[in-house]
């Protein structure tokens, strides 16, 4: 009898937790969807680019660092990986932009002065990343680092600079400019 009550109370607890989780998650999804639907096409486009660049950056970094760990120090061995990363990025960007354009076809491709101003300001703020990366690669070159390292510093500089620019854009879209 006691055992039966315990099982029943656990089932009730689980149902309460499930309901709480369901309510919280559905509220989160509703708020996120509402916020996303209220964004301009350009802001949605920045989100798509952020997802694409981040996914490409993380997967390329993961694979290339593993390759370096396995002792592959020929630059040409990384070229197919780079090609796949670029193709992956293009695919994510194309599919992502088709999806956001389908949500509001009338807003697709519309870009006004606020979008241009945010684009310019974010680019200006993130330009230091490129400078720092190039200087780092040059320093590595003079220090006699392996060309694979130099190439990866330059490549990662481009990825990180783009991520910084997209991050600044989202910041200015949310906070205001």
């Amino acid at each position, binding site marked *: 009898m006691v055992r039966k009550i315990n099982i029943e109370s656990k089932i009730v607890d689980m149902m309460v937790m499930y309901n709480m989780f369901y309510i919280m998650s559905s509220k989160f999804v509703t708020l996120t969807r509402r916020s996303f639907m*209220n*964004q*301009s*096409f*350009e*802001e949605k486009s920045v989100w798509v680019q952020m997802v694409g660049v981040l996914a490409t950056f993380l997967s390329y970094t993961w694979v290339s660092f593993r390759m370096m760990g396995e002792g592959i120090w020929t630059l040409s061995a990384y070229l197919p990986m780079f090609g796949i990363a670029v193709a992956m990025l293009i695919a994510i960007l194309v599919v992502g932009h088709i999806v956001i354009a389908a949500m509001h076809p009338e*807003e697709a491709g*519309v870009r*006004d*002065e*606020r*979008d241009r101003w945010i684009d310019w300001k974010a680019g200006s703020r993130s330009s230091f990343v490129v400078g720092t990366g190039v200087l780092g690669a040059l320093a590595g070159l003079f220090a006699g680092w392996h060309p694979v390292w130099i190439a990866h510093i330059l490549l990662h500089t481009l990825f990180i600079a783009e991520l910084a620019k997209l991050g600044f854009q989202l910041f200015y879209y949310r*906070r*205001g*400019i």
Partner: protein
Amino acid sequence: MARSDKPRLVIHNQIRTLRFTNGEMTQQELARQVGVTRQTIIAIEQGKYSPSLEVAFLIAHVFEQPIDAVFQAEL
């Protein structure tokens, strides 16, 4: 003039009020007439974005008001 000495200008606007007194004009309709996105009108109304002079004059023109009846600056 040093950067810290630069006067801070706060710009207010009456766009929301003017929309309602002009036949409850929607943000989308104002955006269409001015040639910007609806989100830019929202950002201007919320004080998150100060428009260019061109857009500011266009907004005033839509409401048939002088520009200082739409935008006010406070030092």
